[in-house]
């Protein structure tokens, strides 16, 4: 296993005290596997991603659980070892390609930095390496791109530069946090093609965070559905799209118009984090709610790494 998250509970300090934003989260990612973590805003996807790199701000607290990266517990590593892991063994691609790049430094210099800082490479060598990775992410004329500034590139191109930076040091795991949300269809497609290619060629693992089920269908091998800080279902891609188990997953698929032409929206809104309902957290919005759902939280039903769901409809 490249990444193993076990029973992770994270809480954040708010004006109402500590509130759990991620609760009892467990999943793992194998070598060369793309894991899609799917959920709506505020469900804890991004916080989970940041916790893997220990990038969470001071107001967050790890209440329990562990994150193992190639067997090493991220939470017990000293700060200086983290510097080795961040960027070199685990890298991250964020949503907004404009804010992740420095607007006054040339593209090439920003990539070179990776090689110089992490590997202590000489500038000349670093330049050559940078041009190589630019070519790998599909720039037809990497030398020209090397000398350009971020504002001279389109959104899709900028995102490809970030991917180039993310792969430059040959990481084992790449975390992508909604990397295509700010892009239009054509550039989205381009970025996804490049990511797929990379995973196949380099055998890296990927944690792909998104709310877009169309992307998941195209890209991911396994899928975890998150709702209000909990993983409610995990399945292999094929079985998920043909047979989603949790009522929330079914609602998402129909909302995204992926099950025919019929639109059946999920009613209500995602509750605020300080008013998390008792029992199954989805019960106020669920059409198939039973009495037991209102008081008790369902346990995992099914087989781990294959397909499981947290719902009383499937026994408990």
């Amino acid at each position, binding site marked *: 296993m490249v990444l193993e998250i076990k029973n992770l509970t994270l809480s954040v300090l708010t004006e109402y005290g500590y509130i759990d934003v991620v609760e009892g989260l467990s999943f793992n990612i194998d070598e060369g596997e793309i894991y899609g973590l799917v959920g*709506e*805003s505020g469900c804890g996807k991004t916080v989970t991603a940041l916790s893997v790199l220990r990038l969470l701000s001071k107001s967050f607290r790890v209440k329990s659980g562990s994150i193992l990266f190639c067997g090493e517990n991220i939470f017990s590593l000293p700060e200086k070892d983290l510097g080795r892991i961040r960027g070199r063994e685990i890298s991250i691609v964020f949503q907004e390609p404009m804010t992740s790049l420095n607007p006054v430094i040339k593209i090439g210099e920003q990539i070179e930095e990776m090689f110089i800082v992490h590997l202590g490479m000489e500038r000349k060598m670093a330049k050559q390496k940078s041009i190589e990775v630019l070519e790998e992410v*599909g720039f*037809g004329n990497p030398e020209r791109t090397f000398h350009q500034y971020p504002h001279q590139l389109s*959104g899709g191109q900028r995102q490809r530069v970030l991917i180039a930076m993310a792969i430059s040091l040959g990481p084992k795991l790449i975390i992508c946090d909604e990397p295509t949300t700010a892009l*239009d*269809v*054509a*550039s*989205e*497609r*381009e970025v996804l*093609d490049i990511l797929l290619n990379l995973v196949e060629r380099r055998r890296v693992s990927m944690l792909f965070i998104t*709310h*877009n*089920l*169309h992307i998941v*269908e*195209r890209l991911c091998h396994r899928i975890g559905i998150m709702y209000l800080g909990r993983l409610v279902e995990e399945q292999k891609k094929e079985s998920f799209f043909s047979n989603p188990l949790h009522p929330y997953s079914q*609602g*998402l698929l*129909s*909302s*995204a*118009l992926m099950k025919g*032409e019929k*639109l*059946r*929206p*999920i*009613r209500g*809104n*995602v509750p605020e984090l300080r008013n998390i309902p008792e029992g199954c957290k989805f019960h106020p919005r669920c059409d198939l709610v039973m009495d037991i759902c209102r008081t008790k939280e369902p346990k995992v039903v099914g087989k781990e790494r294959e397909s499981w769901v947290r719902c009383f409809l499937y026994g408990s």
Partner: protein
Amino acid sequence: MGEVLSVRELSKLYEVKKSLLSFSSTKIKALDNVSLDLSAYETLGVVGESGSGKSTLARCILLLERPDSGYITFLGKELTKLKEKELRPLRKKMQIVFQDPYSSLNPRKRVIDVIAEPILQFGLEKRENLRDSVISILRSVGLDESFLYKYPHEMSGGQRQRIAIARALATDPSLLVADEPVSSLDVSIQAQILSLLLEIKEKKRLSIIFISHDLKVVRFICDRIIVMYRGRIVEEGTKEEVFSNPLHPYTKMLLSYSEGKPTKIRKEEGEKGGCVYYEICNWRKKECLIDSPKLSGQESHKVACFLESTR
């Protein structure tokens, strides 16, 4: 009931400075000879990627921006010839819902103020009846009177978008322009807003121009579809025609994207040609470089492509 809106040869140029300090500038054609018709109770989808001129089209139709040339006929009146003062009574008949309900609502106004403003502006209701009419508008978008005194920050994205729709409906418009109304919302909320729009369209008998880059959404909600590329309409037709038998290479590419099929795009940048799509077209011919194809074909399906006109 015939045509609500008819747009003829609409063009809009923007001047863009070459760099921050330079005096020279280039002109970008945001809209290039765009013509379209919208009949009563029809939903017209406008599709294209970012920068294709979708939003400029919306803004020009509502005269939020003055087009450089062309004619817009709305409810039998020629809008481009009217002065701002003469335009006012028509403004209440055309309304817009923007993409991002976080920036389109004034953070310092309560819901009642937001919805009451257009009503008061156009003198549609007496002050003493105001509260009741705001409540009935709120009900029509699936909210209730508990929202009256809320501020935008107290509501979720979906609720805010409902308020934005309520504000647009307050003046009882004939035309609603929805500029990517669901693309900044969560998936489950997107579906709620879409079904709300459908319901409103049926109930209020509205004509809607629905701008989106999401083909699945457009297919769901629209009757007719326009595909735009770099300020031009490259294909136009009924939903059934465009989706089952796309003609323009660009439409084909968009469709295969949304179906998850791999498509090759020309990587190397070609010369700029007569046809706007020349640069990246896989099927380009000599004549595409010289001349630009016109939109032609049957009423139910038109395309601007030489490949189709010579077939």
